[in-house]
Structures are given as C-alpha cells and as structure tokens.
C-alpha cells in the first residue's frame, strides 16, 4: 500500500496536481483569519473611485490619472510629486507629472485610463517604481527575459518539426 502510494508520487505528472491541491487546502484554511490592513503603508495611493468622483465635480481635472496622480512639476526640485518610499533617493518625485504626448492625449480623452497611462511605455510608471521600489522593475523584466531566452532557444533548436 505504502509502496503503491510512493510509486504514484514518483510520477512527475502527478506532482503538480498534488502541489496545487495542497496550496488550495492551505488557502482555504487561511480564509477565516482576521485580516487588517496596516494604515501606514509605504506605497500609499488614494482610492481611485474618490479621485474619479472629485474629477467629475471639477475639483481638479488632473485627477484622471487616478489612482496614480502624484502632482508636482517635471524636473523641479521645489515642486516635487508626493512620493513616499522606504529607500530614499535624492531625485524622488521629480518627474511624476511628466507624460509623453501620447499619454497626455490618453489622459485628455478619458477619466478611466489612469492605470493604462501609467503602465504603457513612456508613462510615469518608471518614475514611481524606480524611485520608490528601485531596481525591482529591472529584476522583474530580467525574469521575463530569461523566460524568453529559454523559450526561444527551445523553439530555435527543436529537433522535431511541428
């Protein structure tokens, strides 16, 4: 009996299923735990719905960058954007207001593309991430590029045509 179970476990194709099941069990047990958010977050941002509602009331038009609007003027040390971070950099908050022409156009068009504007190349994600989270972005993309390297090598050097 034990031998049969062990033999079953030795099959590589069974391993991911058992692992996924174990994770599911652990996650189910975590549901009833009391979960409180810490109010003193290092990387805070105002709730997006609040920003959009304020923008609709014409309180501040620049709010259609919600939830990433940090204010400030580009490359102006006296008018920095509001950026809070654990690991300090002297150039924090310098270019939080900078947008490429395309991002500017996106921002003018809609209230609801804040995250898209920030995340697309040439947006302001780089500023926020580089100066609050540092080289994380580079590390993350290095993982992605490693995966691409492996995949492209496998495809270029496959022995059997598909």
């Amino acid at each position, binding site marked *: 009996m034990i031998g049969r179970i062990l033999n079953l476990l030795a099959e590589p194709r069974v391993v991911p299923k058992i692992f996924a099941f174990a994770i599911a069990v652990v996650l189910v047990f975590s549901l009833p735990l009391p979960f*409180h958010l810490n109010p003193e977050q290092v990387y805070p941002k105002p709730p997006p719905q609040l920003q959009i509602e304020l923008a609709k009331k014409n309180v501040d038009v620049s709010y259609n960058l919600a939830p990433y609007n940090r204010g400030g003027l580009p490359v102006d040390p006296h008018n920095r954007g509001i950026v809070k971070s*654990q690991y300090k950099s002297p150039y924090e908050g310098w270019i939080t207001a900078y947008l490429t022409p395309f991002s500017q156009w996106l921002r003018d068009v809609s209230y609801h593309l804040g995250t898209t504007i920030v995340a697309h190349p040439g947006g302001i994600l780089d500023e926020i991430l580089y100066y609050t989270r540092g080289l994380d972005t580079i590390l993350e993309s290095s993982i992605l590029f490693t995966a691409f390297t492996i995949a492209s090598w496998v495809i270029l050097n496959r022995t059997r045509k598909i």
Partner: protein
Amino acid sequence: MNEITNLNGPIIGHIPFMDIILYISPFSLALVAVIVAFTIFLALSKPELRSVARFGEDIVRTTTVEKKEARFRRFMTILCGIALTGVVTTGDLFNFALFVSLTGITNMGIFAGVKDTHVLDATFHYGLVLMICSLPLFGGVAMILANTGTLSMGILANIPTNPILNMSRTLLLIGAIGEGALAPFFATKVEMIRAKGAPYINMMHLSSLMVFTRVIEVLLILG
C-alpha cells in the same frame, strides 16, 4: 535588526543598490563564497561524456553533448549563480521573492536545453509547479506588505508576529519549496537529473540548498 544579527552575526556592511539593500554578514558571506566558487567551477568545467549500456544488446554507447547545448546550459548555470547570490544577500522581501523565482526559472532553463523526452517531460511538469507556486510566494509577500506596511527585513525583524503573519510565512515557505525544488519535488528532480551533461545539473542541488538555507533564515526573521 536584533534577530538578523542573532541569526547572522554582526552585519559587516550594506550595499545600497536602490531598494535592493544587500547586507553582508559572516553568514551570507560564507554562502556567497560557496556559490561563487561553485559557479566558477561549473562554468569552467566541460560536460561529461556518459556511457549508456542497453539491456539485451552488447553495445555501450558514449553520448555527447552538443556544443551549442552546452553553451546554453552553461549560460543558464551562470545566471542561476547570480540569482542565488541575490537570494542569499538581499534585505528586501519582495526582491527575495523575485530572486527565488529567477532561480527557479534558470533551473528550468538548465534542463530545457536537454534533448531527451523523459527529461523534457519532467521539466515541463516542474515548470507547471514553478508557475503554480508563484502564487503563494508573491501572495505571501503581498500579505506581509499589506499587514505590516513594509518589506524591509530590518524593520520586519522587530515586528511581533500575529496569525496573518504566520499564514504569510506558511505561504512563503510553500512558494520557496516549489521554486527551489525542495523536499516533495525530489521525485521530479530525479527524472530531470537523468539528463546528460552532468556538471550543470549540480547547480540545481546548490540552488535547492541555498534557497532552503535562506528561506529558513527569512522565516525566522519574520517570526
């Protein structure tokens, strides 16, 4: 800081590399020395020539590793060494998770170059495990961030533990077990280790060992 110094000995220095605050203690210095020495050793060594005997035939074949394949696997081995250096020295929890997953994916890369059906099959299933366990790994880190508001190990060492933090630690452990191919995945590993081209395969054992050592240290720091 107290628990870090209790576990590691006195911290010799910090390397401020933006947010990837690397700290050097006698403990991490020893681990880095092992990793660097082992990586250099593997990078300089040539792949083995393995003799394969078959049942029922009176033939012994010598298998060789293609130069292109060996070069790719050597590259992945060196990359894995770099990732491991990050794993053992980083002082930021999110970077720890990133480095651990980079280790996992380079481990997969070492075996993805092998042209052997059963090895590739095992590697595929191990890749599924890698994808699955990125959920608990990063989920645990995200729960720690949401609950304590920080990711710095120096600050986390002084925060007393609570049920949610214990839960996050469990998730982090499960994630690291999957990414580092620790105990329950030896079955998958054994299939993969049947690959030819021995020296590069040893990187996987080293990464298991280092991820194991480091994740225990991180769990003790959080607790």
